[in-house]
């Protein structure tokens, strides 16, 4: 039996799909532009605004569904998770915007070694993609894997920091690299938060 609530939940899912697509675009564009030393800040900014608008829509709809249907159990867990995931997706966009701004703040970074960033960005982009896939397919296994990969990202972040200090890198290159790595590390954290929400949605178990 299709319930009225199901129509709303379907709409909520579609909004989250739209947000996922835009946030992935933001991160991919920002990383690509940074690695190829291009300016992309305006394009990313436009998308972060879209994300903010979509997040408001998600929250409005989630609140309306709660008022109208007082959802419980899996419905309740899904709707409350949507509100939190919407926030995580907005954060993806925000960190992408921060990465895009590095080029504006530091100018030409064409001479900097970006090898460390490129390998870290590859892992983090995959985490972002996996977190969205796990959410859409309620794949608890994939969500668990995100938590393990994040440990590797954190470790890579610390090692890279040490390398930058030890290598005596050019100040502009060092500072910009540290900032981008920090933003990537935060994107990975939000991917993990989504993974924890997937676990909550599926099993009702909250992350401690």
């Amino acid at each position: 039996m299709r319930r009225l609530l199901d129509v709303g939940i379907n709409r909520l899912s579609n909004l989250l799909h739209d947000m996922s697509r835009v946030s992935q675009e933001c991160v991919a564009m920002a990383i690509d532009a940074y690695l190829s030393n291009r300016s992309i800040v305006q394009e990313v900014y436009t998308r972060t605004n879209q994300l903010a608008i979509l997040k408001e829509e998600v929250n409005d709809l989630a609140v309306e569904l709660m008022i109208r249907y007082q959802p419980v159990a899996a419905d309740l867990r899904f709707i409350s998770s949507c509100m939190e995931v919407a926030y995580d997706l907005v954060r993806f966009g925000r960190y992408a915007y921060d990465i895009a701004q590095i080029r504006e703040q530091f100018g030409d970074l064409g001479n900097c070694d970006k090898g460390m960033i490129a390998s870290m960005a590859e892992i983090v982009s995959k985490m972002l993609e996996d977190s969205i896939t796990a959410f859409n397919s309620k794949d608890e296994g994939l969500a668990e894997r995100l938590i393990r990969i994040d440990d590797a990202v954190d470790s890579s972040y610390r090692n890279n920091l040490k390398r930058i200090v030890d290598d005596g890198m050019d100040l502009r290159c060092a500072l910009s690299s540290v900032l981008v790595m920090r933003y990537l590390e935060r994107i990975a954290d939000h991917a993990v938060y989504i993974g924890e929400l997937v676990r909550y949605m599926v099993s009702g178990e909250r992350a401690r």
Partner: protein
Amino acid sequence: MDMRLWSLISKDYSYAEKVDMQGSEEVTVEVDDDGMNGKMVLEGRGLGVLYANKYAIKDVNIKIVRNTITAIIGPSGCGKSTLLRCFNRMNDLLDARIEGEILFNDYNIYSNGINVAEVRRLIGMVFQKPNPFPTSIYNNVAFGLRINGFKGDIDEQVEYALREAALWDEVKDRLNDNAYSLSGGQQQRLCIARALAVEPEVLLMDEPTASLDPIASARIEQLITRLKEKITIVIVTHNIQQAARVSDYVNVMMVDENMIGRLIESGPTREVFESPKSKVTEDYISGRFG
């Protein structure tokens, strides 16, 4: 295992005959330690009810924690009211056969020699439709006191009960009016006052707001929530959201393939409504059937 001393009667009733007990008043028993010892006021063990040799409910194990509100929910015909009526032997009036036992303060109320009237005083009941007696508001509340041989000041006790039922301010100047002159919601609160007058330990409520409008229902819910400070409440309701609003614990009943009522899930309200263990519970509370 836990050894503890218990009393067959947990209150000192100055005005009524105590439950007819078999043996001494204080007995040492061994009970399973599941963390609820001393907190439980009622417990059903292996409970079954048969009407004309057909099971209405079977193998029900349920615990009611003192000073809490326990909701029993489930679709029509699953045995919620039948289970509720077991708690104060109201099924006796329906020619039902009972299996298992109901422990009230650790004493089986289905034991031989039990004073059933006293059980029903200690475990009061309020029904779906308000059923005041065709007499004055005052007499409705005083009735139980008189038949129980209450020795104190009846006026005081009537006022106490009406205050507890959040009705005093509305009726204090018209206590001699006929109870039927009250609104539906007021009549239901009068019935609650009537039950509270004899100072029960447990109040059983069988869909107490089913015939009331939302405002009257909200007042009853507010009242129930306040009453649990003094007594234990077991409420049967069809309104899942009402169970979510007012209860501390929820018990979900369902019929099996033989149309016999079964208790399929019990737990703290938040857990049952957020992460039910049973798929059947999930479907029922989410409105997928029932």
